[in-house]
């Protein structure tokens, strides 16, 4: 039972998913509110369980293995045990409104969403290649379906593209895992790390090839260049709450496993420098390509697709910095975790504002956001605030996030990467603030006011306050990130 306790928060998620499905099948068909409430209860219970684990963790051992070492529940895992349910809670609240359009599909929708969350949490807790793969697949399969959930031509195209590219990248990743198994004779991450430490020079190339192959699969999840092709189409075609989830949840899951895999397992000095350079290159490409392509978008969801590629590039700057920094591991990995948190709040806030607006004006075109200040002052303010945070200006969470990440890169002597990052911040300011300008300083074509629903306003308020609070007082959250990152300290 000790074992089950460790993955309790995950089990709660899966149980909630199953319950949602079963409730829908029972003769008195429950309405979608009940299903959403089941989901929310699952989220809260899961978070409470994590809190209980955390309280015990402070007195207990630093790492906790369970299930014959396939599952690891340390501070890093607990960080994501909190993060993923939180994201899902937000997304469920944001979906209520949206689901009015699809009356009897709510069960599948919520069940898949909860299954993804459970999968993402399990991914963060994985300590074995087999579990990593299966947790990743659970998320991917559900996400393919959710991307095509609307079943119209655009949504189906999104689902299909996501599926085809996803299956290909997962196949490459699996090849990398096979290489690791062949090199180390074990699927357990600690065994692989041990094998790497004693590896001969001849094996180094094979380890690097494996690292590259893994980066394909993880990079696909994070939507970084050159594995970003799916992002704009899927972001545009998927239902907007799903897009919101993909832009934060899927990315966070990708980074969770990247950190665990690359620092926890492949972090030996003999190859760390090489893959750090690979990530640095990907970071530079992602930031540049994402921002430049975002400049010419006219659809706001598509714009966020490109913007999220650029933001993933920012995460990667931190990722690359960790390995180059050698002994100073925690500074950079906590910067990445802090960035993930800040980005989550910010992007969710922005997406809720977009949801609230697009639900009413029935359009995703940026041109239709003109003069939003006059139609919905609060929504316009929230969106503007989140866009400022995405740009990385004070007094927002995004400012500190960028500061920490770039600082980590500077300490790792990656000046060129920071220069590219700063130039890209300027480029991104152009299109982020362009939306703000259009909302505040142009006249609306239609005067009718836009009103958000209660659930949306609530989640929007929480997300925005989060962005503001982190922006004014980044200390506590940085502590949290640092504690989670201690796992990788050596």
């Amino acid at each position: 039972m000790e074992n089950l306790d460790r993955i309790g928060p995950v089990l709660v998620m899966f149980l909630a998913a199953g319950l949602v499905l079963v409730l829908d099948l029972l003769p008195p068909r429950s309405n979608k509110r009940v299903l959403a409430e089941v989901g929310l209860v699952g989220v809260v219970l899961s978070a409470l369980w994590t809190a209980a684990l955390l309280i015990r963790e402070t007195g207990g051992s630093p790492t906790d293995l369970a299930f014959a070492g396939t599952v690891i529940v340390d501070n890093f895992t607990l960080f994501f045990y909190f993060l993923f349910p939180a994201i899902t809670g937000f997304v469920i609240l944001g979906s209520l409104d949206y689901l009015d359009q699809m009356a009897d599909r709510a069960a599948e929708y919520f069940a898949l969403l909860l299954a993804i969350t459970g999968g993402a949490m399990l991914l963060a807790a994985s300590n074995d290649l087999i579990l990593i793969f299966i947790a990743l697949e659970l998320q991917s399969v559900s996400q393919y379906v959710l991307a095509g959930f609307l079943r119209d031509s655009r949504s189906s195209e999104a689902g299909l593209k996501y599926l085809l590219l996803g299956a290909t990248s997962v196949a490459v990743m699996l090849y990398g895992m096979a290489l690791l198994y062949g090199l180390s004779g074990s699927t357990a991450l600690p065994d692989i790390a041990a094998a790497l430490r004693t590896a001969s020079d001849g094996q180094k190339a094979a380890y690097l090839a494996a690292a590259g192959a893994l980066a394909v699969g993880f990079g696909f999840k994070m939507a970084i260049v050159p594995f970003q092709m799916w992002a704009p189409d899927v972001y545009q075609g998927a239902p907007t709450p799903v897009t919101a989830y993909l832009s934060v949840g899927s990315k966070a899951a990708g980074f969770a496993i990247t950190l665990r895999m690359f620092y926890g397992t492949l972090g030996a000095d003999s190859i760390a420098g090489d893959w750090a350079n690979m990530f640095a290159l990907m970071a530079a490409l992602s930031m540049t390509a994402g921002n430049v392509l975002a400049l010419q978008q006219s659809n706001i969801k598509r714009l966020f697709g490109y913007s999220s590629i650029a933001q993933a590039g920012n995460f990667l700057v931190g990722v690359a910095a960790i390995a180059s920094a050698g002994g100073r591991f925690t500074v950079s990995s906590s910067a990445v975790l802090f960035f993930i948190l800040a980005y989550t709040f910010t992007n969710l806030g922005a997406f809720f504002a977009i949801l609230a607006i697009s639900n009413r004006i029935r359009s995703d075109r940026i041109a239709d956001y003109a003069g939003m200040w006059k139609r919905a002052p609060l929504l316009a303010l929230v969106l503007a605030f989140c866009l400022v945070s995405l740009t990385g200006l004070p007094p927002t969470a995004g400012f500190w996030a960028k500061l920490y990440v770039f600082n980590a890169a500077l300490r790792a002597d990656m000046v060129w990467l920071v220069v590219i990052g700063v130039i890209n911040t300027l480029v991104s300011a152009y299109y982020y603030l362009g939306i703000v300008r259009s909302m505040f300083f142009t006249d609306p074509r239609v005067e009718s006011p836009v009103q958000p629903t209660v659930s949306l306003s609530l989640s929007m308020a929480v997300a925005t306050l989060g962005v503001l609070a982190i922006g004014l007082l980044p200390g506590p959250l940085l502590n949290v990130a640092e504690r989670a990152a201690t796992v990788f300290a050596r």
Partner: protein
Amino acid sequence: MLGQWGHMGFLVVVGLSLPAVALVISFLLGLVKIRPKDPNAIKQDTYECGIEAEGSAWVQFHSGYYVFALLFVVFDIETVFLYPWAVALRQEKLFAFVDALLFIAILGVGYVYAWRKRAFEWR
């Protein structure tokens, strides 16, 4: 190692060669004019009896087939997992038993879902 599979290999070879030999013999007999070659319309029919085949085989089939095939694959994989379970059950005792029951129960939800959503009905 190969020994126990040698019989299997032998079977495969025999199985593959039977039709090949038949075709070759027929061809050789045709060369020396023992086998008559006299094609006509009825003989060239796809099916000798039953309803006459009409049009091209390249039509779009009903998508229901696909759902059935998919259901088949899913439960096929379930069976595959139960096979090592059956072999290992005697050693692993209660834990494995409960484990597999849970596995089946989860897929049972899927089965009920498919049933209630009328995926087993042909429409």
